[in-house]
């Protein structure tokens, strides 16, 4: 869920940019190391970023009837790891803002934090945890993509509630308002993305391509 250009007040936009910057800088350092060790990784990484962008242009049939698109947060974290996703996500979010008018430049920091940092780390953590708990792979993948998506939506609602606290009930009331309004579209979207990600991982595993892709990127 992208926060649109100009939606956040200047102070909040700056603060979220400052919070996201260290993650992106760390990701760029990791990217530089990857490229220094393995210059051939340049094109697979760009392909991964292009792929994540294209996901946002694919329509996802939602349970409520509204049409939305997959975020690729969980899939990206599972395939490429969450630290690289911070950089690839930042590039994709910038291109989405410039080419699709999804998000923006002043809200880039806030969107990077929700979709390229919080979402991938939650998805990755859940995936690793489910593996350690010995859950069936399909359930682990579903939970990872579902909760990764849900995390981005909760973080976005928190960002909006911090920016626009309710006059009566403050931050908590505003969070309840934003979370419930966006839940109408985001909760079914998270379920649909979880299901689609299971189909994707199943198909890749069946073809023996899951391991190789992770290694390349």
């Amino acid at each position, binding site marked *: 869920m992208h926060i649109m250009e*100009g*939606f956040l007040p200047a102070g909040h936009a700056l603060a979220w940019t400052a919070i996201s910057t260290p993650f992106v800088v760390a990701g760029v350092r990791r*990217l530089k190391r990857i490229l220094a060790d393995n210059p051939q990784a340049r094109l*697979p990484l760009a392909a991964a970023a292009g792929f994540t962008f294209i*996901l946002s242009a694919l329509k996802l049939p939602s349970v409520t009837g509204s049409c939305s698109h997959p975020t690729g947060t969980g899939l990206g974290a599972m395939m490429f790891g969450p630290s690289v996703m911070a950089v690839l996500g930042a590039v994709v979010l910038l*291109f989405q803002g410039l080419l699709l008018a999804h998000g923006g430049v002043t809200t880039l920091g806030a969107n990077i934090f929700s979709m390229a940092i919080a979402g991938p780390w939650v998805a990755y953590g859940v995936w690793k945890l489910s593996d350690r708990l010995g859950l069936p792979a399909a359930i682990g993948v579903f939970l990872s993509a579902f909760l990764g998506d849900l995390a981005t939506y909760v973080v976005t609602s928190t960002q909006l509630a911090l920016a626009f606290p309710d006059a009566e009930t403050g931050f908590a009331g505003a969070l309840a308002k934003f979370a419930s309004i966006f839940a109408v579209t985001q909760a079914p979207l998270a379920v649909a993305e979880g299901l689609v990600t299971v189909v994707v991982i*199943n198909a890749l595993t069946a073809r023996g391509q899951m391991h190789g892709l992770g290694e390349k990127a």
Partner: protein
Amino acid sequence: MTLHMDRLAQGGPWRQRALAEKAVLALGLLGLALVLPPWPGAALVLVAAWTSALAAARIPWGDWLRLNAAPLGFVLTGAAAVAVEIGPDGITLAADHGRAALAIVLRASAAASCLLLLAATTPTPDLVQGLRRLGLPVELIEIMLLTWRFIFLLQDAAASIRNAQEARLGWHGRGRSLRSLGLLIAQLLPQAMERARRLEMGMAARGFDGTLRLARPHRRVSAISMISIISLHLVLAGTCLWLA
């Protein structure tokens, strides 16, 4: 296949203008939209951005309206949350009668128009080259340029797979659509990696050392244009402070 925004940027009359002029105009207006009070500041910025886009950059009306409509869904839903309050009586209209929500809609619409003005007049590779001059790491710039290329390749591949699926009624019904989308993504990802591998081999064979050098026609920044743009910003800021 092309993206609508890219088509406008590549074919528009402002394609030949210097990046610095377009960036200072659009980003300057964007900054004003954020820091000036929404009324009358954002309203003035909105008028300036729309006039620049429609009269100066000659973006067709239909395209411009369609571009501006895209962010409205989020802006209106978000503003609706600000316009209501949750109290003991349930959900009621906010005490300010939605004035804060209106201010948000005005500011966000103005800011979005400024970004659209830049995006619809400047192709993305030009902007990426501008970021390189601002000192962004060269590795990141290369990944950005290659990503931009992959977007179009993968868009074509996704469209072909989707056409084939639709021809087999793969998108008939919700369950089948979800499965088809999953299969499309599963098909697209290895295709993306395979294309990357082939492209990498081809470029390595031609001595690719990781640096992408693009032919960039030199566009001189016009001092008159720059002075006019900065004057416009100052006039807008002054008018806003005078009216407020």
